[in-house]
């Protein structure tokens, strides 16, 4: 609970600038007046892993030179299979780093290198699968020793309950998952990661609530889908900001992980640079927030593309080119002093099309972030921020919400206010019920973490 005020106003937060800019990798500067493309790729599985990473990394660095991309970040997200083979992980991180350094030297490229470790824990096993936890920490150490500049994870503490709750619109379950169970897990996890990062002098980048907020976004789907309310997906995003903030409270310092759309909140609150994804990550995540999410990014990502051949080249090359032009436009805006103008267009483009975009618009983020930093504990801020989000959505006529959405929001507000009156009590009582019903849920293991 280290952050008690807001670093920006809605007027001054903008892409390419963060209060606490960073310099790492082969002299890459992030957050100091430049938006950097962050490209993420997925190896073809039938290939030799090392050769596949050599192929991907080579084509990306070559493409950067061909296009004149001076600054970029590569992100390798380790797969479950790779996580089983430490030797392989060491080798592939080493290989990529040495290729990066060769190109940096020859062409003066500024390259950052993020490695994301998979959360391989089976939360149904005793002590949440401690063996896997240890393996994860080993791998964080290993990749730090072998060349990673930034460490990240999409951690999953609390997701057993979340999965059960999200498809039932069960707000008590969602709050308990994000605001309570996840809190315990995030604290333990990030204490460990930050300590490894400090030992190895690498950056502790941050955590994404992908398993929560992106799942909700995916299920909510398009404008005319009626899977879950979009307003529900929106408050899940807001609540997930409270959860992801914990990494920073434990000492993470960015750049925040790309698929955490909640990073807008984290930038507002922490001042650290953040990676974002939207329009050009449609290749992996279809969303209703494609432009608005770019408004405040410091790195700009494609989420993840498979290394398959497309007409214009392999997937990663193609998307690096797209990111290159996206960021070039933003950087040119900065160079011309027009960044606020472009930012405003990005926001206006999406803001009122869906509640999901609305809660990612800087002015709305600001108001909700104020609630987040003023609450006394993780659980209360989770509930209070969601209530605030509903209040703001409810009075915004331009949002043009359907009858179903309004019906849900009314119900949700009532429920959340009820919880807010005595959160700890409500949550603990609810957990007794869930433990029997929700597969794999082991409440005790969270509390002892």
């Amino acid at each position, binding site marked *: 609970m280290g952050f008690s005020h807001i670093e920006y106003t809605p007027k001054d937060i903008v892409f390419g600038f963060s209060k606490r800019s960073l310099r790492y990798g082969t002299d890459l500067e992030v957050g100091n007046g430049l938006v950097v493309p962050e490209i993420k790729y*997925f190896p073809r*599985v039938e290939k030799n892993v090392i050769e596949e990473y050599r192929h991907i990394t080579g084509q990306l660095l070559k493409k950067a030179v061909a296009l004149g991309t001076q600054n970029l970040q590569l992100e390798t997200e380790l*797969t*479950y*299979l790779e996580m089983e083979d430490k030797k392989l992980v060491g080798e592939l991180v080493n290989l990529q780093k040495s290729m990066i350094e060769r190109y940096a030297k020859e062409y003066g490229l500024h390259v950052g290198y993020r490695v994301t470790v998979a959360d391989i824990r*089976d939360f149904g096993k005793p002590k949440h699968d401690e063996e896997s936890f240890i393996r994860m920490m080993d791998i964080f150490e290993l990749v730090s020793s072998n060349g990673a500049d930034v460490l990240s994870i999409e951690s999953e503490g609390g997701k057993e309950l979340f*999965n059960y709750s*999200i*498809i*039932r*619109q069960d707000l008590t379950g969602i709050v308990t998952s994000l605001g309570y169970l996840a809190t315990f897990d995030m604290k333990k996890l990030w204490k460990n990661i930050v300590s490894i990062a400090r030992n190895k002098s690498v950056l502790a980048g941050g955590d994404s609530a992908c398993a929560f907020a992106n*799942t909700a976004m995916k*299920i909510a789907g398009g404008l*005319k889908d*009626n*899977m*879950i*309310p979009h307003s*529900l997906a929106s408050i899940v995003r807001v609540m997930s900001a409270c959860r992801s903030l914990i990494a920073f409270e434990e000492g993470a310092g960015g750049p925040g992980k790309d698929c955490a759309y909640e990073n807008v909140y984290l930038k507002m609150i922490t001042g650290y640079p953040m990676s974002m994804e939207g329009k050009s990550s449609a290749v992996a995540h279809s969303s209703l927030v494609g432009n608005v999410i770019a408004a405040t990014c410091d790195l700009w990502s494609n989420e993840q593309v*498979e290394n398959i051949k497309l007409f214009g080249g392999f997937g990663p090359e193609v998307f690096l080119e797209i990111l290159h032009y996206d960021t070039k436009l933003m950087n040119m805006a900065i160079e011309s002093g027009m960044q606020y103008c472009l930012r405003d267009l990005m926001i206006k483009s999406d803001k009122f099309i869906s509640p999901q975009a609305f809660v990612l618009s800087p002015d709305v983020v600001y108001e909700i972030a104020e609630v987040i930093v003023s609450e006394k504990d993780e659980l209360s801020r989770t509930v209070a921020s969601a209530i605030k989000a509903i209040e703001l959505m409810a009075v915004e006529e331009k949002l043009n919400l*359907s*009858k*179903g959405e309004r*019906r*849900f929001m009314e119900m949700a507000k009532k429920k959340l206010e009820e919880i807010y009156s005595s959160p700890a009590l409500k949550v603990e009582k609810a957990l007794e019920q869930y433990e029997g019903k929700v*597969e794999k849920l082991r409440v005790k293991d969270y509390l002892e973490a």
Partner: protein
Amino acid sequence: MSDIPSNEDGEMSKEELLNAIRDSIVNLDFDKSKEYTLKALEAGATPQEIILKSIAQGMEIVGKKFEESEYFLSELIVAGEIGKEITKILEPYLKGAEMKKIGKVVIGTVRGDLHDIGKNIVAMMLEAAEFKVIDLGADVPPERFVEAVKSENPDIVGMSALLTVTMVEMKNVIEALKEAGLRDKVKVIIGGAAVTEDYAKNIGADGYGANAVEGVRICKQWVSQK
């Protein structure tokens, strides 16, 4: 919701109570639905009446509201669960008259894959469509699918995979079923973001569902052809 009468606690006829159960399902109000069910049974309603007039009609209304985009899928699911809970209350009264199921499905996410949300939705919607569903969970190895087919004798096996790395497991399951001599006893349907209709054909699955609605439609078709 304005179209649902706010039932007073006073005397209500059996008919009124049956309607009240139906409406509380539509309102997704589990507590009320339970209360009225007990009252209806007291007032002489048979379990069959409650199932037909309250649960079935309530589900129909919710289904229609979903189709008309007024309700969300999640609400369909909750209504289904309330229906299930009411049925549990009725069980002692049903005295052995088992609920009719239209077919049996064994379902799971394949080995190495922990994405289970899509699979869960499919499972729930199958249940709502009156299938008996045996959910093996996520990260299910081929042996467990084979065991379940042996012990449960289902009509259908459903598999889900969201990762390119794990979709190959589906083939392994089909091979394992073949080896165990069980392949011809079941229809196999697969789904999940990683797989495609082609892939289903390639590995010899009988069907592919791009989403839960499609999956349920195919399963219904299969059991109706039996």
